[in-house]
């Protein structure tokens, strides 16, 4: 888990660097790293991960990147409607095409 956390932070910064330089449409992983990792990443202080540990225990991985049971509609609903203290994300934050890329990444 620790190694994943370090990798996530490095990706978080690298993705931003690429983004800042060319403004290109980022990959699904870059969208995930930018918008989801601060809450659903590995390590302490991540409310999304904490809640999923409480909710699923050993039945499912708490890290979304390790899940294999999610569907396109499931992920789209959570991002666009929110759940619990997770607010919905607007299209000025995550565009439809970025959302699609991010979901493709998680369903890879």
């Amino acid at each position: 888990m620790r190694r994943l956390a370090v990798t996530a932070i490095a990706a978080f910064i690298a993705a931003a660097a690429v983004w800042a330089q060319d403004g290109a449409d980022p990959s699904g992983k870059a969208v995930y790293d930018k918008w989801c990792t601060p809450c659903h990443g590995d390590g302490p202080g991540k409310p999304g991960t904490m809640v999923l540990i409480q909710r699923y225990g050993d039945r499912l991985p708490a890290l979304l990147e390790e899940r294999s049971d999610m569907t396109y509609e499931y992920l789209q609903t959570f991002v666009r409607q929110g759940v619990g203290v997770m607010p919905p994300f607007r299209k000025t934050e995550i565009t439809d095409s970025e959302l699609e890329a991010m979901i493709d990444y998680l369903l890879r």
Partner: protein
Amino acid sequence: MPEASHLIGEDDMPLPPGVNERDFTAALGEFRRVVGDDWVFSSDEDVNLYRDAYSPFLNEPEDPVPSAAIAPQSTEHVQECVRIANRYSLPLWAISTGKNLGYGGSAPRVSGSVMIDLKRMDRIIEISETNHYALVEPGVSYFDLYREIQSRGLKVWIDPPDPGWGSLVGNSLERGGGYTPMRDHFAAQCGMEVVLPNGELLRTGMGALPGAETWQQYNYGFGPYLDGIFSQSSLGIVTKMGVWLLPEPEAYRRGTVSVATNEALVPLMEEINYLMNSNTVQGTLRLQSALAAFDDANVSQGWAADLQFYGPDKVVDAQWEHAQDRIRSRIPQATFIDGPKHRFPLSEEKIAGMANAVPLGIPGLSAFQFGAGENQGHLWFAPIIPMTGEAILEAVNVLSQALAELGVPASALIPPQSYFPRSIVIFVGFPITADTETNRQTRETYRQLVKLAAEHGWGEYRTHIAFMDEVMECYSFNDHVLRRFHEQMKDSIDPNGVLAPGKNGIWPARWRDQRA
């Protein structure tokens, strides 16, 4: 005043009050010509994203909902949008990143308002590593600026608030706070670009002097200092802002001082005030007590204070030693615990292992663990109280007893903190639930706390959109001259009342009878 409209917009969203469907459709067409078809949102699906995600009116008809949302990408776009709003008398409500969660999120005060969503204006225009400031647009989040600083390897810190996804501009304008020595965010802003209610563009401070290179370096410019009237305000839309940064310190250390009795909190706070106001102890002071069990039986549980130090390695050690010496000489029974010490920069591995790195200038979301998994959100009650032991004890007693009588769990009371120099904030975090009746009771309790706090001289520094009128009502010196003055300015600067009617209890003339 505009009558509440029962008509329906393009989908099922309400029309702006006082605006007919034909004019609304025409206005949307004009907005589309300015920002492009993709950036005018008017369907249920899209507009619902601008409701308050933590609304105390969750699933109730009173929950404010906009009529449409416009997402400009430039200052010129914002100017044009404001001019269109004036032509059609449309109420606008601007958001930066819309993460004012616990205070209304992205939602407008008036249902049917047209949102101006500034998230696409996300340029980091300048970062100075040598004089420690940045110039940013409203869509730039604390995460964004942090990532940019890291990717460029700059030796400067930001001061994040709890929500790292928040906007530097939005949080500063709402007068939010952080944890480092730069914690008072409005005090750390320097120079604004503002679209006025008539669409004209204003730059404050040195920004008014063409060719000046000191817009982000000297706050005041010449003549009356205007910036304050654009904070918690409906007098303009801020499209650029300077924010001061912190030079990366060599080291950080924390120490905890504890006293066993409540009586000892009085001299302890006097000593802490000396140390903080002389800049020996820096950043946000965090007090802890047995607040969760704060009743008559447990009222003497004592207190602990986390003291923070930022600076050269040897100096932070000396500052902590000096703080201990000074407090020990006044309160011999006080005890001290060395907290963590860090030298910068931190390794990525070390950061990844931290539960909360926000006091080290690293944005995060750990504060959202509050109520996560149980609630639909939270609602903050945030009174300012004097920074004295007596006042803290009185406020904790008054608030905890009131919460107990009103059936609110004592865990809702957050330990006192000093987000702003020379004062204390005691937050109450009310849970927002899926149960309408519980939320109704929460709203009633909140209103009672506003009055109770005001009776003791404690006023909210910021509040949820649902309670702005009640809070402004408390700031009533000399027959509400403050509100009357604000509304005189509002009527003069925004005669059509298009910008954020009702924001912070300030209503333009045509909307004034909407006051709760």
